[in-house]
């Protein structure tokens, strides 16, 4: 395509350059604020400060690099504006000269025609002949001028094209972008090892600027490859001791690193905290916007606006409860690490949190909840899990365990409160089973030495049973079902569930919730306490003076009151004790 020397507005380009300078000022002010915050934190001491310091120092440094890139871009734009202005001035001159030339050509043509006629006439004089010759010579001159001007114009078109190329190349330069634009394409063609080395070498703000292909490729790498790569970046480290490259990856790509099998769980924890906090901030913005929209809505739009607000508020509540997992009070597990094991900012948001350190615990159990569970239930489920851990700790072999509250699938909604009949089908369980298999497989790949158990409640047992039936290689020790909504009929017996041991508890529940889930299911599901199925039954009634489980829930009795309802993992229940024992075998 031919360049147009007149195209563009150098004044607007200069204004754009000035806008970039304003942007620099904002970044500089922000960086100054972060540096001041770091100074203000001077009298803060402890492990939490160490973690703070590692990240806070990266922001002003990154801001300075970004400001430097803006400097380079400003230079490119200023040069381009000057070039375009000069080219446009020159274009004006040439076009004016061409116009004058064209008028001279026209005048000469008319005059020459007349002079030639006169010189050829019967009464032509010597003067007529001279005039015609002079005008012919003038015609040659104006034609030469026209050619010269056209050549100048062509050169100017090329000059403009060169200026465009220079500006385009300048704006695409590594100095401006922090990375070469061809890099993304190159990354795609690199070997896994080269790709990982290249990604680890990027500063965080550059890493964050990459398109989805980088995140997608990282997410698709085998856990063993990821683990070797991560360890090579500075050791498996800890929350306080790790490398700048690891920190860059955590802060720039938290959604990837937080769920990347092979990355140690301390790093996933940090990444998922970032992701969840960012998701919560966005959810808060959505609530504010929905509230504003509701206030502005007319009568016809009010219902939809209210629904939008309700949905936004529900999402925010779920995210905030998930975040609260880091500090919710848990009984008798003081000082134990808590880790955000996974987080997916989807619809609905999903995630998992551990009590105990998944990088080191010798015995890890996943708690898979059932119908109606969302992230809003995170802290309640953690309290149930902490009861198991506290009970495990009463035994010598239970001092180094972890319990993961796994809300990693879109559980069917509560049929009793919503009328949604999804709990009677298998679609949600099948989808959830794949996710559970991926997460358990990721854990197993990272921790081949650890004992791994699954404790599943209600529809979670339906889901987990499919996972274990279809994945014999997960190395699960004990599989415990509590108030199961039924095991799918295509799984004939406990032997077809690839766990070394299977246990099942079924209480006399108020409203027979689990039983209803089993008998109304389609395809038909089996009660795992049905003796021929082959699971070891856990007695959910009064055993040795314990309290009988009488409701379908896991945790309804925080204080262990004798006269109150009891769920499967409440204090003083045989199901809690036996679950703890089963997961220690």
């Amino acid at each position, binding site marked *: 395509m031919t360049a147009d020397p007149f195209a563009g507005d150098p004044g607007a380009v200069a204004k754009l350059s000035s806008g970039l300078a304003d942007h620099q000022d904002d970044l500089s002010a922000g*960086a100054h604020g972060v540096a001041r915050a770091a100074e203000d934190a001077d009298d803060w001491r402890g492990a939490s400060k160490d973690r703070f310091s590692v990240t806070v120092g990266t922001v002003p440094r990154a801001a300075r690099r970004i400001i430097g890139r803006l400097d380079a871009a400003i230079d490119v734009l200023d040069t381009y504006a000057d070039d375009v202005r000069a080219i446009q001035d020159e274009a004006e001159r040439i076009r004016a000269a061409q116009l004058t030339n064209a008028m001279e050509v026209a005048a000469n043509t008319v005059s020459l025609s007349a002079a030639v006629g006169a010189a050829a006439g019967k009464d032509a004089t010597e003067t007529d002949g001279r005039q015609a010759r002079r005008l012919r010579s003038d015609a040659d001159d104006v034609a030469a001028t026209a050619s010269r001007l056209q050549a100048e114009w062509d050169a100017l078109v090329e000059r403009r094209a060169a200026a465009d190329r220079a500006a385009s190349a300048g704006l695409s330069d590594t100095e401006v972008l922090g990375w070469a634009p061809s890099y993304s394409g190159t990354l795609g063609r690199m070997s896994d090892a080269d790709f990982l080395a290249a990604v680890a070498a990027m500063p965080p703000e550059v890493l964050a*600027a990459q398109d989805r292909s980088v995140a997608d490729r990282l997410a698709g790498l085998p856990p063993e490859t990821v683990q070797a790569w991560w360890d090579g970046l500075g050791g498996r480290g800890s*929350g306080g001791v790790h490398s700048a490259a690891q920190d860059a990856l955590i802060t720039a790509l938290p959604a990837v690193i937080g769920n990347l099998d092979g990355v140690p769980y301390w790093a996933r924890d940090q990444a998922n905290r970032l992701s969840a906090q960012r998701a919560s901030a966005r959810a808060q913005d959505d609530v504010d916007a929905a509230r504003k929209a509701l206030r502005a809505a007319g009568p016809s739009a009010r219902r939809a606006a209210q629904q939008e607000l309700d949905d936004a508020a529900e999402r925010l509540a779920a995210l905030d409860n998930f975040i609260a997992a880091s500090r919710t009070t848990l009984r008798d597990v003081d000082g134990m690490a808590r*880790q955000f094991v996974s987080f997916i900012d989807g619809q609905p948001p999903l995630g998992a949190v551990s009590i105990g350190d998944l990088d080191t615990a010798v015995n890890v159990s996943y708690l898979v909840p059932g119908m109606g569970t969302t992230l809003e239930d995170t802290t309640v489920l953690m309290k149930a899990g902490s009861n198991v851990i506290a009970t495990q700790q009463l035994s010598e072999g239970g001092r180094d365990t972890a319990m993961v509250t796994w809300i990693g699938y879109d559980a069917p909604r509560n049929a009793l409160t919503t009328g949604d009949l999804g709990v009677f089908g298998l679609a949600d369980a099948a989808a959830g089973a794949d996710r559970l298999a991926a997460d358990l497989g990721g854990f197993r790949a990272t921790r081949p030495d650890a004992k791994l158990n699954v404790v599943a409640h209600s529809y979670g047992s339906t889901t987990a049973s499919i996972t274990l039936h279809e994945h014999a290689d997960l190395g699960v020790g004990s599989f415990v079902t509590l108030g199961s909504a039924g095991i799918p009929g295509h799984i004939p017996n406990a032997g077809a569930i690839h766990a070394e041991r299977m246990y099942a508890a079924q209480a006399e529940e108020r409203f027979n919730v689990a039983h209803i889930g089993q008998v109304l299911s389609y395809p038909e599901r089996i009660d795992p306490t049905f003796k021929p199925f082959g699971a070891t039954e856990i007695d959910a009634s009064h055993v040795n003076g314990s309290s009988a489980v009488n409701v379908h829930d896991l945790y309804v009795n925080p204080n262990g009151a004798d006269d109150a309802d009891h769920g499967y993992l409440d204090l003083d229940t045989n199901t809690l004790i036996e679950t703890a024992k089963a997961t220690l075998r």
Partner: protein
Amino acid sequence: MGETMADLRVSYATLDGVHDALDAAQELFANASVPTDAGAFGADEVADAFTVFRTSQERSTGWLADTSRTLAQYAHDTKSLVQDADAELAGKVGGK
């Protein structure tokens, strides 16, 4: 995670100050925008390159904003954690 309180020493005022400074920085980063070219170049290849540059800048600036917000939240959470632990200890001492 799993903060041990034994080595932690910080005042609420410090954490509040850190939170506020980072919150203000986050606002600055979040509101800092790179202007659009609005046809100023008159040349597609320059406009395309500027768009890539602008996207890159906005993502990088977004990282600054996100990280500042996360750090502000971290300071806030640390304060909450200390307050929770304090309240829990008070409860235990009080026999609750």
